[in-house]
């Protein structure tokens, strides 16, 4: 059933996910998902709440298994390597993540927050190099102009939208290959949301983005590909323009018409 509605992307795939199952205790939250995620594109993961979207992307950087009782089965190939057999710490250096609520480290300055991926690992950087990384990451996150004069203030002094972009900068600073975003705008006002959406479209030049959203319009605005999840199954996957105009599965159609809420 799933096979005919899941389209292979035209671009080369960075993630090749094969028959993925994720469990909380005995209960499967993800059932047999097979999917290829194209490189340097924005892929939206969409679906009603409780459909396993978040669980799915938490599998992609192995955060899922930190939940007590959680378990993963199947294969997730990142450029051909199965990340489930890799050191999770290494996986997470290559697959960054931005969370629902902005979570800058409260004890650190803006500057240190951006460098957290280095500092927390005890990696010593030369001063110029550190400055360069901070500026580059903040520019990419479209935050540089707003904070360049207050780099040594606490990250928690920023507004919610700025904090979220700081978290994006923090994730970008370690130069990941993939950036996972778990409903990054759900805690933000419309103006900040628009900024983040612009940013997402811009960022795909340098990094692959997988973004979870329950907001249909947002998926339509930012993504090149869309995956529709329902009750832990991948119902449909394809180019966003196709999926939105001619959904192949009835459930996708109903969701797009707003029938699941």
């Amino acid at each position: 059933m799933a096979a005919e509605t899941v389209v292979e992307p035209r671009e080369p795939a960075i993630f090749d996910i094969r028959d993925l199952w994720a469990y909380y205790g005995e209960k499967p939250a993800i059932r047999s998902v097979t999917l290829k995620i194209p490189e340097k594109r924005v892929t939206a993961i969409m679906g009603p709440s409780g459909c396993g979207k978040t669980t799915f992307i938490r599998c992609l950087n192995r955060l899922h298994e930190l939940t007590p009782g959680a378990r993963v089965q199947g294969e997730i190939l990142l450029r051909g390597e199965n990340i489930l057999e890799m050191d999770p710490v290494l996986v997470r250096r290559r697959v960054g993540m931005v969370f629902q609520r902005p979570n800058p480290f409260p004890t650190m300055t803006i500057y240190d927050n951006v460098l957290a991926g280095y500092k927390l690992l005890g990696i010593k950087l030369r001063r110029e190099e550190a400055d360069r990384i901070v500026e580059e990451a903040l520019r990419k996150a479209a935050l540089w102009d707003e904070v360049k004069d207050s780099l040594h203030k606490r990250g928690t002094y920023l507004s919610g939208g700025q904090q979220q972009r700081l978290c994006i900068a923090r994730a970008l600073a370690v130069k990941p290959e993939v950036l996972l975003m778990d409903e990054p705008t759900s805690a933000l006002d419309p103006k900040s949301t628009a900024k983040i959406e612009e940013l997402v479209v811009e960022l795909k030049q340098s990094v692959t983005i997988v973004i979870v959203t329950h907001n249909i319009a947002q998926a339509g605005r930012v993504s090149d590909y869309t995956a529709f999840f329902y009750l832990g199954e991948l119902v449909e996957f394809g180019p966003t323009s196709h999926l939105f105009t001619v959904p192949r599965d009835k459930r996708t159609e109903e969701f797009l018409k707003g029938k699941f809420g």
Partner: protein
Amino acid sequence: MKGLFWRKLKDRLAFFLILILALLPALPLIHILYGILKQGLASLSWEFFVHLSRPPGEEGGGVGNAILGTVMLAVLASLMAVPVGVLCGVYLSEYARGKFGEVVRISADVLQGVPSIVLGIVAYLWVVKPMGHFSALSGAVALAIMMLPVIVRSTEEILKMIPETLREASLALGVNYWRTVLKVLIPTGLVGISTGILLSLARIMGETAPLLFTAFGNPFWNLNPLQPVEALPLTVFKYAISPYEEWIRQAWGASVVLTLMVLGLNLFSRFLAWRLGGHGR
């Protein structure tokens, strides 16, 4: 109507009874503070803080060695209790699942309830007896055991209050768990953890019973942890039950110093906790 009248009268009576009973115990407590200040402040002088005690019959002298000894005991005890206590707290908050965690928590609670004089006996049997003589170290061991449960439980509670998203933020950057604990969680909870440590310090600095047969007391200056050492509470005790007026006067003086130290630590930790509650972050 009569029913209502009686009920209201009873309500009033109960209020006054409670008010009186609630305020009465303030009398002795305030009188203690008054006694310490009145008797104690009079005997304070520069000499009192920096000098050794004099033999009975001679005027003057001080408790400098006891102040130094109390500080030394507190530092030694902290050196032992803080790392162990904080890491035990980390274990309970971050790693403990199921039964064993419960056993550790119960152990901490049991430890908290052990009378301090019993810990004195234990420190005597563990340190004094094998070494063959009394020492500051043995006193610090007893005090460290008293500090442990407070530090363990407060660290656990503070770490549990830190939102899960902060751990995930660090882990998602590819930071390993131990660095996440040491560089994200502990710094974030630092104020709360320090509050617990200060409270436990305040609790042990006034302890006398576990020092009677461990630190023992020493009329001279001593900075060697392997030798007996004087401590303020010991001084208060020894002088208070002595028959010499001059010594009794010094007992009051020593108790002002001790009370100020303990209350100061208490107040400071409360101040930290207050900042954590409303103002920090």
